[in-house]
C-alpha cells in the first residue's frame, strides 16, 4: 500500500531528524568544560548522550530538554553548569528551539531551586551581564582549539 509505505517513510524521516538534532545538541555540550576541574562535562559524566531529549513542537520548531548530573553538591557550581549549558545551546543550536535544563532527579538536594533559576530567562540574562560570571561561562563554553 503506497500511502502506508509513504507515511512510514515520513515517520522514519522524522525520527531520523530528531536523532540528528539530538546528536547535534550532544556534540555541543560534551565539550563544555567543568567550571572547577580541567575536564569536559562528558569526561566527568555530567552529560551523556542520553541526557538530551528532542521533541517536535511543530514543523521546524523543537523542544530540547537536557538533564545533567552535577558532580558536587554545591548549588552554585550546579547552577553555573546549568548556565553554561544554556548559553552554549542558545548560541550554537542552528535550529529554532525552546530549551529546558534540569538536574537529573534525585541527584541534588536543592535541585528545585537550581532548576527554577536556570530556567528563568530573566535571571540568566542578568547573570550574563555580571562580568565575573560571564568570564567563567565564556571560558567553559570556549570551543577547544
Amino acid at each position, binding site marked *: 500500500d503506497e500511502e502506508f509505505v509513504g507515511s512510514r517513510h515520513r515517520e522514519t524521516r522524522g525520527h531520523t531528524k530528531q536523532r540528528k538534532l539530538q546528536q547535534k545538541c550532544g556534540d555541543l555540550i560534551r565539550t563544555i568544560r567543568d*567550571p*572547577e*576541574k*580541567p575536564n569536559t562535562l562528558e569526561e566527568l559524566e555530567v552529560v551523556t548522550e542520553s541526557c538530551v531529549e528532542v*521533541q517536535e*513542537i*511543530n514543523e521546524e520548531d523543537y523542544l530540547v*530538554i537536557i*538533564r545533567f548530573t552535577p558532580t558536587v553538591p*554545591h*548549588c*552554585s*557550581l550546579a*547552577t*553555573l553548569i546549568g*548556565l553554561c549549558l544554556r*548559553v552554549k545551546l*542558545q*548560541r*550554537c*543550536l*542552528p535550529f*529554532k528551539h*525552546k530549551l*529546558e535544563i*534540569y538536574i*537529573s*532527579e534525585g541527584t541534588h538536594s*536543592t*535541585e*528545585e*531551586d537550581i*532548576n*527554577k*533559576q*536556570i*530556567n*528563568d*530567562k*530573566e*535571571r*540568566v*540574562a*542578568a*547573570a*550574563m*551581564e*555580571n*562580568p*565575573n*560570571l*560571564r*568570564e*567563567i561561562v*565564556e*571560558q567553559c*563554553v*570556549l*570551543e577547544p*582549539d
Partner: protein
Amino acid sequence: MGLFPSTKCLPPAISAPARTTSCSPPRRPCRTEGRGPARSALTFQQIRVHVAQHVGDPQLLAGTGATVDVQPGRLGEGGAQRRDGQGAWQRRGQATLRLLGQSAASRAPPPAPAGQPCASGGVHTRGRPPLLRGRCWSPPTSAGRTEPACPGEESNALGSRQAAMKDSLVLLGRVPAHPDSRCWFLAWNPAGTLLASCGGDRRVRIWGTEGDSWICKSVLSEGHQRTVRKVAWSPCGNYLASASFDATTCIWKKNQDDFECVTTLEGHENEVKSVAWAPSGNLLATCSRDKSVWVWEVDEEDEYECVSVLNSHTQDVKHVVWHPNQELLASASYDDTVKLYREEEDDWVCCATLEGHESTVWSLAFDPSGQRLASCSDDRTVRIWRQYPPGNEQGVACSGSDPSWKCICTLSGFHSRTIYDVAWCQLTGALATACGDDAIRVFEEDPSSDPQQPTFSLTAHLPQAHSQDVNCVAWNPKEPGLLASCSDDGEVAFWKYQRPEGL
C-alpha cells in the same frame, strides 16, 4: 579571541562610569571557520578563585555586584521554602490539592464546546490534562508532557474556529526595535501617541506614527549600563521612568522629541525589575531581585524621596503595578505570590498576599474598575482575583478593615509555556497575554457570566506572532483594539484586534 564573536568585549563593570558600545552575544549559530587571535585564557586557578567566591551564595545567578562576599550565613537562606521544613514542592502540591478539592465542591461549570478548553470561575475547568504538576520544577515525564492548546485540527468546526481566532488579530506592522538583542517591555504614553520600548541593548526607544508607519523618534542611550527591563510613563505624559539591571532607575523628562535624564534613583542592591507611577503622579514604585519593593514620593520640584522599603516577598520581585484609582500597590514575585500594599498611618504595609500560583508570577494587570486583578505565571495559568471589601454582600470574610482577595477564575490549558505578560484593556475589558510559545492570545469575559465566577473565552490566538518568546503586550489607551507586542527576537509588532463574529 576565540570562536565566539561575543568574546571581543565584555560588558563594563557596574562601577565604571564610562559608556562602551553595547555588545550582547549575537543570536546566531556559532561559526567554526575563521579564528581570530587567541585571547589570554584565565587559568583554572583563577577560575577556582572566582568560583570559590560564589560558593557561599545559594542564589548564584547574581547579576549586579562586581564582587560577591562569601557569607556563610546566607547558605541557610535558601528562601522560605526550606525554613518551614517543607519542601517547595510539598507546598505547591498542597496548593494543587486545595484547588482540586474546590472543584469537587463547586457547582458544575458550563460545558465546554467540543475540543475547546474553557475557563470557569473559582475552579479549574479544562478540556485538556491539567498543566499544574505537584512538583513544578522537576523535569517532565514522557507521560505528563503538556500539550499546547488546540494541537492540530480535529474537526472542521475546530479548524474554522482556529482560523477565526487568527484573523481576529491583524498585523499592522513590525519594527526591528532592538536589533541583535531582545526587546523586554513596551509602554504607551497616556495620550496613546507614543510607544516606549526597552531592551537588552541598554537603550530605550520612542516610537511614533508617521503616516502609516511607525518610526523611531528618539533613542535614550547612556542612561544605563545594563539591560533596561521596564519603562513607565508618568500620568501627565511628561516623564518616563526606566528600570535597569544596573540597579538604577532613570527618570527622563520629555521636551518635545528630546528626553533628558533628570534623576537617577539608586538604592536597590541589584537588578531593578519594574517601575510604575501611581495615577496621582506623586508616587513611584520600584522592585528588585533584592526582594524589596520601594515607594518613592516626588514633589513639585522633581525631587524624589524614598518613603518606604517593603520587604514582604521572600524572593526576586518581578513586577509592580498601581491600582487605577486607589493608592494601592500590587507586586508579583519569584516566590509565587502576589502582594498588595497600602499606606497606613504614614507608612506602607503589606495588606494582602495572594497565593495559588505554582511558580513565578511574572506580571499583573488591574481591570478598568480596579475591582479585579489578573496575574500571569510560569505555571502557564492566568488567575483573576477579586477584591471583597469588609461587609461585602457575598459574605467573604475580611480581617479588620482590609479587603479580602479571592481567586475567582483560572485560565489553564491555553498556554503551552511561561506567560510573561498580561494586559487588561481599559477601554474594552479584553485581556491579552504574551507567552513563551511565541503566541499572543486575547480573552474576553462572557457577558452573561456571574461576576463572582466569571468565564472568559479565548477570542484570539495567534501562534508565531513573533519568531521567539513574546515578552510584553500593551493595549493603546485611546484606540480600542490597538495592541503592541515585543519579543526576544528584538522586534515590536502592532496589531489590530477585533472580536470575530460568533466567538
